[in-house]
């Protein structure tokens, strides 16, 4: 099923059905707009696909394809191969994009294959830290202690028992030209990173932190504030790698993790549990030390 986009308008149209305060919608708009008209996007199954392309409507004004949950990177590889075959690869940006589950869990093999093969593709992972499209189930990128429907808090559980999978480092380990983390709270930085990523040949990777008001249980007006606090507490470091080498980190005036946690229902239990709180503090501390985040 194909729907024709109107190229005269904005590349990511309003009128889609994302929830109010959806961080992913904001970030996806930036990615499409920065990339420009000469773009083909392969989108994994997930919220972004569902809220932008319910037939017969589409929010995309760039060429866009959705196939399945785990294969956006492979579909993009096929698109990129076709563009090379047609001699158009130098004039077209090929982007693959998906959520954290589609990228770090079910699509991990497909992503690794794409990065390893050297395709000229930007992969963007919109990280909202759980399977939101199916109703807030735990993914490999769900943070420690987060309360999701499949890592619920109970007598014998304080939520998700594991820290986030080091997705960015896994991408970096493929020795790709460019890999970075970004946040919807820092839009000029996100824009710059998309632009920079697209300036490199070969595979590149972006992991963008995007709050989900429904899944994180926060007021939809707080999306940007919460995303900002994730960075400022050291829980979501914004860093850039070039060919495996760390080239920049966003320095922060470190704030206590409680400021981030207290605004979200998914962490409510952590604030009442000193041991859990200490665990989260340790995660932030490790990030701050590892990347030298503190100003």
């Amino acid at each position: 099923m194909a729907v024709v986009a109107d190229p005269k308008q904005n590349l990511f149209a309003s009128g889609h059905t994302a929830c109010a305060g959806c961080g992913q919608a904001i970030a996806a708009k930036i990615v499409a707009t920065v990339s420009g008209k000469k773009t083909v996007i392969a989108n994994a199954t997930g919220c972004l696909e569902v809220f932008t392309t319910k037939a017969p409507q589409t929010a995309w004004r760039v060429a866009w394809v959705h196939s399945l949950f785990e294969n956006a990177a492979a579909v993009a590889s096929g698109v990129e191969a076709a563009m090379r075959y047609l001699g158009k690869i130098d004039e077209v940006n090929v982007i693959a994009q998906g959520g954290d589950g589609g990228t770090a869990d079910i699509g991990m093999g497909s992503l690794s294959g794409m990065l390893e093969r050297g395709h000229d593709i930007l992969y963007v992972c919109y990280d909202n830290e759980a399977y939101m499209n199916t109703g807030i189930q735990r993914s490999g990128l769900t943070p420690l202690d987060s309360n999701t429907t499949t890592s619920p808090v109970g007598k014998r559980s304080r939520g998700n028992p594991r820290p986030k999978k080091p997705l960015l480092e896994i991408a970096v380990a493929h020795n790709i030209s460019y890999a970075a983390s970004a946040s919807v709270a820092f839009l000029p930085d996100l824009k710059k990173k998309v632009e920079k990523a697209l300036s490199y040949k070969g595979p590149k990777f972006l992991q963008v932190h995007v709050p989900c008001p429904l899944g994180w249980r926060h007021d939809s007006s707080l999306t940007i504030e919460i995303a900002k606090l994730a960075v400022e507490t050291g829980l979501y470091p914004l860093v850039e790698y070039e060919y495996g080498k760390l080239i920049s980190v966003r320095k922060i005036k470190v704030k206590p993790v409680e400021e981030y946690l207290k605004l979200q229902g998914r962490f409510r239990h952590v604030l009442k549990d000193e041991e859990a709180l200490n665990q989260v503090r340790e995660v932030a501390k490790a990030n701050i030390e590892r990347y030298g985040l503190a100003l």
Partner: protein
Amino acid sequence: MKKFVEGSHAIAEVIAKCRPGVISAYPITPQTHIVEGLAKLIADGELEAEFINVESEHSAASVVLGGSAAGVRTYTATSSQGLLLMAEVIFNIAGMRLPVVLTCANRAVSAPINIWNDHQDSMTVRDSGWIHFYAENIQEAIDLHIIAYKVAEDKRISLPVLVGIDGYVLTHAFEVVDMPEQELIDKFLPKFEPIVHLDPDNPVSMGLLGAPDVYIETRYAIEKTMQDALSVIEDVSEEYSNLVGRKTGGLVEGYRIEDAEKIIVAIGSIVGSIKDVVDELREKGEKVGVLKIVTYRPFPKEAVYEALKNAKYVAVAEKAVSLGADSPIFSEIAALMYKKGARPLINSFTIGLGGRDISPAQIKQIFADMDKDEPNTRYIGLNEKLLEA
């Protein structure tokens, strides 16, 4: 041009002559020789195409999906577990109406792991919206791939095609074949012109969410196209047959069935063995014949009915099963005959699973036993000692 060639290399050569722009595959026995052949042709500069070595069959199918959506002719090949791993994408490719061509070097499925021939793999995706062809020999395999592209890319059809060729029996066998010249294929198979594709200058969104208000129509549209494909396959096969000067392709092929009282229905390479037995029994005055189904999807109901309606006895000999029910092709033929009125006695036989050799004696046994009615599918050549264990 006549040449003596291995089945897999013949397919690699003919695929190269069909000029796909994106090829992607993952190694699996017995498909590997085909894609090795293509990789070498590209390495030697004899074929201009992108060959994408992927990390799984799921991604191989996804790469050709992406390539085809971007408007380029594509090719992939697999077998057995590889096809099962692709299955999710197989349905997706058909739903997106992308004219991908795939060779399935037919092989049994695990467990137990078994690399030899039967048809259980491709039977699992018979309902996916792909056109299915099955080749009797290497020559037919060559011809069917060329026909496959032309049918798949026909704007009235725009559906993917699976060409089933028996693993080892055809992929690793050598045969003297008539390999069509490049000029002939270029003349027969024009440049692929997609109906819609991922063009940044004319952006479309492909692969949308189909809610209950539109989904059923997408399925009906494929069903309707499948019905239309019957005549397109016949026309395209005729056009190709005229070009090469031999009759090939099409929906079904009846062999000595005109006055036959007993007919075996089969697909793939076993048909050649059955033809030999038919000739032998005919010399003894037995009125026997064989009906080969070349096009299994769309299922050519009219052609099958016409071929079988005057027979007294029909045996469907399959290298596939539907465990817990009758074998797939038998079920379809029984339903067809019941609905259309002619009532030969129809029985189901399973033969050659997991590469078990099929002997002329076993085929004779089917001809001898097909007038005895049995409620369930009969398994030919069972080793009773193994069953006792």
